[in-house]
Structures are given as structure tokens and as C-alpha cells.
């Protein structure tokens, strides 16, 4: 697929280009819902529709009022603040517990490894509505339903499978003789972990942390059940914006979030290229 050889037949050429066209169409399908919301977030009306004025590119049909609403409305600001308060803490819990457990799981001879793994991954597999309902009733009994702690615990549980998956994946390629070498050279296990093991599995940990973070930051079903007004997160406010009051402010929020995602993904890609160059690997 890496380029068309000069001797390709007509049929091959045709297939080559139609395959490309199909792929472009699919990528378009992936990206178009995200592209659509960007212009709509500048809508001067309070509805989710392209107005005639917008299609005619009339400047009056566009406005920044939904952005203004997001930055001035106390509900949205509170929701943003709650998300910022909840997601990192949930991520931290998931990453610390998850990484330690992943290291345990990657030791040779772990009894019941399959069963343990299945349990640790289950929060990703069990339908969210079931998890949400279960936590709702159980956390109520513990008195942590509707508290910050409850939401953080719930989100940490949902983020853990991602940490386990990504960290165990990096540990598969981990050469255990490095640990033994460190021990031979007199390092204690803690020092070995931070000086030898951690730097090598760091990419897996970071990627797991990102997944855990986005899980919490984008999660709406569980927080609707487990949270209360004081823990209203950004997705929760967006859900209300969609269902109860149809507020296009969510499009402005979405555009901002998409912008951040693009920045983040591009930065990661640039960092990766830079590190490849540094390590002398081919730029591909």
C-alpha cells in the first residue's frame, strides 16, 4: 500500500484509488460530527440548527454569546471546577493502585492470575448503568452517595482497567533481569522500582493515566447516580444542557474541549517524533 508501483495494471490503479477514496470517506464519517459543532457553537440563536443567516455567512448570525455564557455562568464554572477537582484525584488513585497491581500481576507464578485479571478489568466490561445503579444503592448505605469521596471512588474504579491494560502491556516487554541486576548491585526494591522499572514502564503509566483521566472527565452515567448537586461535573451539566434546557453552550464547551484534545494529541505526536529522533530511530 506504500505507494503504487509503476508497473501497476489499470485494475490495480482503480482499486488503489477507490480504496483511498473509501478510507477518506470513513475518516470523514469519523470526523464530521466533530467538525459540525464548531461553527454551530458560534450560533447567535439559542437552538442547535444552522440558521439561514449562518449559511449566508451573515456576520450577525454568528456570536460569541455561548462562549461568554460558559465563562460567566456560575453553573458552568462550578461544573468545570468540579471536573477539575474530581478527575485528577480519581486518576491518581487509579494510577497508583493500578501500577502497583500491574507489577504484581507481571511477576512470574501469580496464583489465580486469570481470575484476578478478569476482576480488575470488569469495571470496563460491566454495563455502566449496572455499575451506576449498584454504586448508587451501596454508596447510599455507606453514606457516601452524593459526596466528593463517593464520586472519586467510583471514577477511580472505572479508570483502573485502563491503567491495568496499558501498564501490563508495557511490562510484557520488560526484561526482569534488569531488576535482578539492580538487586545484585545493592539497590533495595523501592530504589529499583523508581530507578529501573518506573522509567521503562512510564509510557504505559502515562497512557493509562490519560485514559483514566478522560474516563472520569467524560463520564456521565455514574456521576448522575452517585453524585449530587455539589459534585455536578462538566458532562453532567452538558447532559442537562442537552435534555432539560437545550442550551447551545454545550457546543461552545465541546469546541473548547476538542481544541484541547487536538493540542494534546499533537503535542504527544511531536514529543514521540522528537524522542525517536533523539534515540536515533528512523523517523519512518
Amino acid at each position, binding site marked *: *500500500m*506504500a505507494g503504487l508501483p509503476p508497473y501497476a495494471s489499470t485494475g*490495480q490503479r482503480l*482499486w488503489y484509488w477507490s*480504496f483511498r477514496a*473509501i*478510507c477518506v470517506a*470513513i*475518516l470523514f*464519517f*469519523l*470526523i464530521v*460530527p466533530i467538525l*459540525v*459543532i464548531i461553527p*454551530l457553537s458560534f450560533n447567535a440563536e439559542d437552538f442547535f440548527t444552522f440558521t439561514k443567516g449562518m449559511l449566508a455567512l451573515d456576520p450577525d448570525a454568528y456570536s460569541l454569546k455561548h462562549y461568554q455564557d460558559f465563562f460567566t455562568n456560575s453553573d458552568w464554572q462550578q461544573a468545570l471546577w468540579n471536573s477539575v477537582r474530581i478527575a485528577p484525584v480519581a486518576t491518581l488513585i487509579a494510577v497508583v493502585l493500578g501500577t*502497583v*497491581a500491574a*507489577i504484581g*500481576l507481571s*511477576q512470574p*507464578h*501469580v*496464583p489465580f492470575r486469570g481470575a*484476578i*485479571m478478569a476482576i*480488575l*478489568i*470488569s*469495571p470496563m*466490561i*460491566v*454495563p455502566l*448503568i*449496572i*455499575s451506576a*445503579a*449498584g*454504586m448508587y*444503592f*451501596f454508596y447510599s*448505605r455507606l453514606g457516601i452517595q452524593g459526596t466528593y469521596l463517593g464520586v472519586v*471512588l467510583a471514577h*477511580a*474504579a472505572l479508570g*483502573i482497567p*485502563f491503567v491495568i*491494560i496499558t501498564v501490563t502491556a508495557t511490562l510484557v516487554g520488560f526484561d526482569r533481569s534488569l531488576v535482578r541486576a539492580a538487586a545484585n548491585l545493592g539497590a533495595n526494591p523501592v530504589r529499583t522500582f523508581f530507578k529501573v522499572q518506573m522509567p521503562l514502564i512510564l509510557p504505559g503509566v502515562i497512557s493509562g493515566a490519560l*485514559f483514566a483521566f*478522560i474516563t472520569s472527565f467524560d463520564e*456521565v452515567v455514574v456521576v448522575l447516580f452517585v453524585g449530587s448537586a455539589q459534585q455536578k461535573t462538566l458532562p453532567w451539566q*452538558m*447532559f442537562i444542557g*442537552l435534555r432539560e434546557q437545550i442550551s447551545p453552550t454545550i457546543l461552545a464547551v465541546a469546541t473548547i474541549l*476538542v481544541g484541547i*484534545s487536538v493540542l*494534546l*494529541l499533537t503535542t504527544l*505526536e511531536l514529543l514521540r517524533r522528537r524522542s525517536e529522533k533523539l534515540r536515533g530511530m528512523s*523517523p519512518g
Partner: protein
Amino acid sequence: MSEANAPMLAADGRPLKKSLQRALRAQKLRALLLIAPLLLFILLSFLLPIGDMLFRSVENQIVPDTLPDTVKDLSEWDSESGNLPDEATFQALYFDLFLAAEAKQHSRLGSRLNYERPGISSLFRSTGRRLDDLGEQYQDVFAGFDPSWEDAGFWFRLMSAQGDDDAARDVLGAERNRVAKLTGIDTGGDIGFVPSATMAELLPRTTREYTAFAVYTVKDKNDVVAEEEPWESVYAALGLDLEAADPSAIAAYSGPGAEVLKAAALQAGQLPVIDYRQAMIDIDEGWGQESNWQTLKLYSGEYTNGYLLNAIDMQKTPEGPELKPEKQRIYIKLFLRTMALSLAITFLCFLLGYPIAFLLATLPLRTSNLIMILVLLPFWTSLLVRTASWKILLQQQGIINDLLVWAGIISNSGRLVMINNATGTIIAMTHILLPFMILPLYSVMKTIPPSYMRAARSLGATDWTAFWRVYFPQTVPGMGAGAILVFILSIGYYITPELVGGTSGIFISNRIAYHISTSLNWGLAAALATMLLVVVLALYWIYDKIVGIDNVKLG
């Protein structure tokens, strides 16, 4: 002989085998210690909550807790005899319901039974409102005998124990338990009242009802027993006790209030003779309908399979479980639809994901990483936003329809309906789940050396044969992984079908949410969740067998 068979020794002189075993044990222990905190965390924050909820699908404590004596009596009743239960059952019902109504628990029981028998909730509500009348008939007569009967202090002295007594403590313990089960409040601790053992023997029913009254008054209302006039039900109990009492035993009584009690016993003939069956039917004719009693009996156990049967469109009848009438069957259909739509979504994800994964795996790294960003961007965009966006795109006055009309493909009046139905759900969910198909496919395709295809071609295969016979079979594990993952995630989906599914595009999860927050039938919600979970776990197990959980790849 023994020399040759002697075990090999390690450096410290222990047998090598043992030494190795010990090392292995230590290793296992260390691994488990590392895993333990997380396992404990998941257990507490995730597994126990789910177990707790699933338990609700069989739990039925509310019936025996609210009507303990009635349920006991009903177990003797033959529900197909064509007769109503006996007088004792009706009496038990009166006293059970009276306490329940005081504690405002009767209508909760009504709502619970209404799930099984429509209309029964009003029976409980209207009965609860009119229970006082029956006791008042006695109350008035007793007040006529002696005004003391209307004095809270007199009652307290009459019923209180003189000393410490085991029999009296039993009565108190039983009533504490009864009130605790009914209301869920903690009824332990001092209540400033201990029933008298003499009274428990002389006037058993009165003692029980007065003690229940005392426990509830102190523990729920925070009042003082000696200052509260007893409930009407206590008068009714006294009436029944005096009718049944042995006159000589009462004559022999000499404790507090003996004169007033003896006078009342002598005049017992003037007490109204109440047929409790007729009285209850007068309160609400529903108590005269056998079918209501049958429902009560069917659901009288502490545990029930009723919710689970309901979740598969069946119902309990006196003759055993049977299918519901056609007009009420819904869940099997919803399960099947959830499966069918999920299959369609999985297939579409495969159809769209395969070319992209192939492209990613064959393009140079630099280009493929750019495309990867396009794949990951939706993944990182809020689910709600993507769903809202599909709403904007797909609606009848939406962008796609506008474009189609503009291009002349459809007429303005023939705009396509692509939202608020199954189509909307399929399109939006395919979009949302597509990355979960692309990523595992991509990770498998990356490992297939391009030389295989070249080799096939150089051996004379056409492009198609090379792909189909050589490349494709090697991608099957990736397909399996992606397909099962997408399918599992899909059948549990809730938000997207809720927002774009209309009526024909909703999933079983939406019904679960509906029963939790709208109809409040938590037992049925739990039963449906149990069924869904069984399906998901079965698939999960298959996934583990085929792919291995370790092989889930995320980018």
C-alpha cells in the same frame, strides 16, 4: 540405595525442592501483596455494590416485614379453595396494617404489590386512612366504662412491669424487632417502658400492641410513653382479649389499675362484637376479593423469583409460573432487539474499521500517526457532544437531509427519518465504538510482515487471492478481539440510545434506568440488570478464552 535417592540440598543444607518451593511461595506472596490493595479497592467500590444491587432482584423482605402475622396465617390458607382467609387472618391483617399505617409503611407495601397486581396500591392507601374507625368503636365504649381508659398515665401504669421478668423482656424484644423490621430504625436502648409479664399472660394481644406502640412512640416520635394515649388498635386488642379472657384470672389480678380492669371485664358483654372480616371489607371491598389475597400469598416470602420471571415476560400464578399475555410481553423482545442492534453496530464497525486499520498498518509511520489522530480525536471528544452532533446531522431538517434535498436526491417532502429510531442509534453508536474496533485490528495488522503478501504475489497469486488467503486469515484474532469488545460495550449502552433512539432504538439499559428512576420498581431493574450482566459476562468469558484479557490493546 538411600544415598542415590537422597534429596539434593541447597547451599544452606535444606532440600533444594523445599528451598525452591519456599522461594516460589515468597514470590507468590509478594505478587499477591502488590495486587491486594487494588483487589480490595475494586471489591469495595465496585463488586460489592453490584452484588448488593443484584440481590434486590430476589429480595422481598418488605412483605413479611410489613405484615408478619398476616403472612404467617396466610401460609395455612388454600388460595384455590374459593374461600377468603379465616377470621384470625383478618384480625392479624388489621393489627399488622395498623402499625404499618402509623409508621407510614403500608403504602410502600401497596406500591410494591402494585407491580404485580395493578390497583392494589389504592387498596392499601384507602385502608390505611380508615383503620382508626374500628378501634374507635371500642375506645368509646371503654371510655364509657371509666374515663381512666382515656388517660395515658393509667395505661402506662396498667401495662408496666413491677419487676424484672424474662417473659416480659421477650415480648419487648419481639416488638422491638417488629418495629425495627418495619421501619428500618434502630429500636435498641431504653424506652422507659417494660411490659408486665402478668399482663402478657392476662391480655396477650393488648400487651403486644401496647408494647409496639411504646417502642414506636419512643424510637420514631421521640415522645414519652407515659404521656401518650395509646392507639386505637390497642383498644381493639383489649376488646378481643377481654372477650377471650378467663374471668377468674382477671378477678384474681391485683396489680395497678385492677379495679378499672375488673369493672371492664364484668361489662365485657357491652363491647361491640366485631367481625373483622366484614369490617375490613367494609373499609375497602378489595379485601373481599380472593385475587388480592392470592397476590399477597404469592409474594409473601422473604425472597421471590417474581422479579426475575417478570424480566423474561413471565408471571407467578397460583398454578406456577406462566407466560404473560401477549399484550404485556416486552423484555424478551427488548433483549433480542438489543442483541440485534448490537450485532448490526459490530458489523458496521468491522466494515468501516477494517480498511482504516489496514491503511494505518501499511502507511509509513509518520502519515499513519496523523491518521491515528483523526481516529483518536472522536475517542477523546465527549460522548454527549458526539451524540448531540449526530442529532443535528441526522434530523429531518438537519444537515444531511438538507444536502440531499439540495442535491436533488430526495424531494423536500420525502426527507429521510434517520433519528429517533433504530437508524439513529446504529449510526451514532457505530461512530462512537469505531475506535474500539480499529485499535485492536491495527495492533494485529502491524505485526503481519508485508513480505507474506509479496511472497504470495510472487508465487502467482492475484492481489485478491493474496489478501484473502494470506493476509485476511492472520487478522482474524484482531477481528475477534475488536468484535467482541464492541459488542460487549454496545449491549450495555445507555446514554446514546436514550438521546437518539426514539422508541425503536432503545436498549435494555434504558429500561433498567427507567425502572430505577421513574417507575421505582428497583427489584425489576435489578432482575433485568442480572440478565444483562449474565450475557455480558458470558461474552467476557468467551473473549478471555479466545483473545485473552491480556491482549486487549488500547492504542
